[in-house]
């Protein structure tokens, strides 16, 4: 059905409107995928929570994640704060700890809100770095791959370099570098980004290889368009859609990697809260204060699942073979 629709509407579109971009087509078929749409809704809510959380925890006193209340240690979720013992400035919102408190009496809700922004930005910046490297290397290898310097071609050099990077056991490499470098949240983002671009590079390269032979690119070349314009205006948008898939899944795995690093003690250091280090601190209190373990654990599960489902939905929407099988 989808195929016949496209075929029928082509000639008309060609006449009166610019044809639908690949991204809009993608969105159309994505809308039919219920799991992926659920994922998108969850991610949308998460973005709001992260931005609101950043604002609330930075600028308001009642949601300050660093407020220590030693009289209110290990209060379960929904517990009422011991209001008379606390100074007004460190009372929680509406006088209750909605998600409980931890071993220092810090409000878990405030820490989770702060952590959502930090965790998400680790995911996004790491993936941003990996995608920029991946697209650049893959694009250069795909477009200028035939250029030769003596016996070796550009494509050969870049792809061998990609092979070299693929040979490192990724998590072990991340662990080594993060452990040796001074602990900082930026190092973690950069290291995760620098060790995860290989898939994107291979993707973009093969995409560019096939695009280079296609009629519209050949036509653009024949018209004498500058290379810059051919690459960025004609080829890049067509190669970009599959990158979205690996980006979405990449954010998911970056968040998981951060929590694994936190577990081993190399994660983001205090005073920053991330979901990963709330979880790994919480594991010590799994019997006394199970909410410290389950709240961040389940949140990570839901968010990573949402990213994965969106990525899978994109992949299915992009894969023409699967689309044909569907109907």
């Amino acid at each position: 059905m989808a195929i016949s629709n496209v075929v029928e509407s082509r000639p008309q579109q060609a006449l009166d409107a610019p044809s639908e971009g690949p991204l809009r087509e993608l969105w159309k078929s994505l809308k039919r995928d219920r799991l992926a749409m659920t994922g998108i809704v969850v991610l949308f809510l998460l973005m709001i929570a992260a931005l609101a959380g950043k604002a609330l925890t930075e600028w308001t006193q009642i949601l300050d994640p660093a407020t220590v209340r030693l009289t209110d240690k290990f209060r379960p979720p929904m517990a009422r704060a011991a209001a008379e013992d606390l100074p007004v400035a460190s009372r929680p919102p509406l006088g209750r700890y909605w998600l409980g408190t931890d071993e220092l009496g810090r409000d878990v809700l405030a820490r989770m809100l702060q952590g959502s922004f930090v965790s998400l930005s680790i995911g996004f910046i790491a993936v941003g770095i990996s995608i920029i490297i991946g697209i650049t290397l893959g694009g250069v290898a795909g477009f200028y791959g035939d250029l030769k310097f003596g016996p070796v071609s550009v494509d050969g050099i870049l792809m061998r370099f990609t092979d070299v990077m693929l040979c490192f056991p990724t998590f072990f490499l991340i662990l080594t570098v993060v452990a040796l470098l001074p602990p900082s949240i930026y190092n973690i983002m950069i290291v995760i980004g620098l060790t995860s671009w290989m898939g994107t590079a291979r993707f973009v390269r093969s995409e560019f290889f096939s695009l280079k032979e296609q009629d519209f690119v050949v036509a653009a070349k024949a018209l004498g368009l500058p290379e810059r314009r051919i690459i960025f205006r004609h080829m890049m948008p067509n190669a970009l859609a599959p990158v979205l898939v690996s980006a979405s899944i990449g954010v998911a795995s970056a968040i998981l990697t951060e929590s694994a690093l936190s577990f081993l003690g190399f994660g983001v250091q205090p005073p920053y809260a991330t979901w990963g280090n709330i979880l790994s601190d919480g594991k010590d209190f799994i019997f006394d204060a199970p909410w410290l373990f389950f709240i961040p654990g389940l949140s990570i599960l839901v968010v990573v699942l949402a990213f994965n489902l969106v990525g899978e939905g994109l992949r299915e929407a992009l894969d023409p073979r699967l689309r044909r099988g569907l109907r």
Partner: protein
Amino acid sequence: MLAFLTRSLAQRLLLLVIISILAHSVVHLAPGEPSQVDPSNPRMKPEDIARIRAAFHLDKPLHLQYAYWMRDLFTGELKSFKDSQPVLPKIWRRFLNSLPLFLCATLIVWSLSFPTGIQAALRRGSIFDRSTTFLAYALISIPGFFLSYLVILWIVDTFNVPVIGMRTFGMESAETSYRWMDRVWHLVTPSLMSAIGGIAVLSRYVRSQMLEVIGHDYVRTARAKGVVEDQVIYSHALRNALLPFITMFGLMLPGFIGGSVIFEQIFAWPGLGRLGYEAILARDFPVILTLNFIAAVLTLAGTLLSDILYSAADPRIRL
């Protein structure tokens, strides 16, 4: 074939050299030296630090250090910074510990994900398909240690057996059957935990591979000429769908080192991953570098193996 082998061996050797140089410079250029592991110790005088640095060749320029490392590695003289034990036997002992864990996990992954994936592909869109899809995504989305802790607690509560470590301390005098059951519990639990990610990924891959093959013309032809459905699926479709998985055999090898850090740490399993983690904490450069080197060798050997296996299995591909 011979030409292919020599060419790819030469290529891989070159890659290996580049990888080792890169790894060596990353580890050595990063701040933090083995001589600074204990900076607050008042007994460490500057001359002691200088002596340590000289003993480990840390005062030499980088390329000389690299040469020393390579020489010691290949003559088997390489010693750990931490305890002056020879590195290779140390790694070998840990490897023997990791091996059962790896084999058991691999067995679980392959024996569970193939039936699941094939069934999901055959009943595409059914409740089974949708629930396994969802389950697979849920399983790769859980932080590994979160799930492991829950499973450990559950097993200890329900079955009253300890699962941390390689065996229960003090069981040496128990009867053989009890000792064996103890070993099995200690082995299967961490294997299952480290297999979970693999099951989720591989079953999805099997599913999409099966779906692709089932859409091909020869499957339709087989059905049209009246071949029994089971035979169509298992001897026409599955055999072709299996081809890409041969390459996965080779690509699994490096998972030995990188994939096991977390789970060996959780289950206190004295394997390779944990050795690497301890070496990183102690700035034990020879162990870190050698483990990395072995991982690279395994990866390169794995890709070569998968190329060869692929050409052996698929007559259309000639090397």
